[in-house]
């Protein structure tokens, strides 16, 4: 099936550009006439993923494939990896520092929100190597 591909660099050095990739995808989907509910789900899931890469992994890459009936998102980083994925998926569990919490993050809702608002989610992570999160959202 035909798809539109985008690739974004997620800058891990500061928070000022965090959310740029999600906003760009949101704008594109809106222009394509995707339903507001689906656009919102994509925006939530992707923003949480983007923020995770900034907080935990010094940034990374977001690859996006938009199909007529769905979006596939690959969030790839070379961060520290996730040692215990089940624990990381628990609502309220977070390894974010006090400094990160003071910015309004670190509620331990990032991965749970990504799971909740996507139709498919896969985490492939190796400690010391990095993490790839796959998200699929059907329109």
């Amino acid at each position, binding site marked *: 099936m035909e798809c539109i591909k985008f690739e974004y660099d997620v800058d891990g050095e500061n928070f*000022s550009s*965090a959310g740029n990739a999600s*906003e760009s995808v*949101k704008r594109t989907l809106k222009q394509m006439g995707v339903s507001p509910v689906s656009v919102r789900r994509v*925006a939530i899931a992707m*923003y949480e993923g983007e*923020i995770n890469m900034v907080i935990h992994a010094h940034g990374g890459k977001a690859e996006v494939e938009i199909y007529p009936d769905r979006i596939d998102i690959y969030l790839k980083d070379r961060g520290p990896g996730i040692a215990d994925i089940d624990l990381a998926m628990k609502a309220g569990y977070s390894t974010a520092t006090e400094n990160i919490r003071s910015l309004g*993050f670190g509620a331990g809702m990032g991965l749970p929100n990504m799971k909740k608002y996507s139709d498919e989610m896969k985490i492939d992570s190796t400690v010391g190597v990095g993490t790839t999160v796959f998200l699929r959202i059907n329109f």
Partner: protein
Amino acid sequence: MKVAELAEKAGYTVFSEGEDREIENGYCGDFLSNIISRAPDSCAWLTVMNNVNVAAVATLIDCACILLCEGVAPDDALLARAKMQNIWLLGAKENVFEETKRVASLCGI
């Protein structure tokens, strides 16, 4: 009620302006993950969080305006981004509870 009228009637500080939209709802919170997943469209978002991530979240949730409570002013990065993206960013003196009551009463929500 639209944002400009609310700002005028409530005497809020206007840090940044955007499209003058109807306020249909409200949401209060500082944890960005809660806000992004729960705040309704076209809401007034009341918070004391004043960093640049607030602008990114406001854009993603499509809120009508951000209302910084308790006399909080935006930091430089938030102010710059709100202006660049035409996001309504208002400032209020009282705490979130008091300002929520004011917004609800003025907007009839």
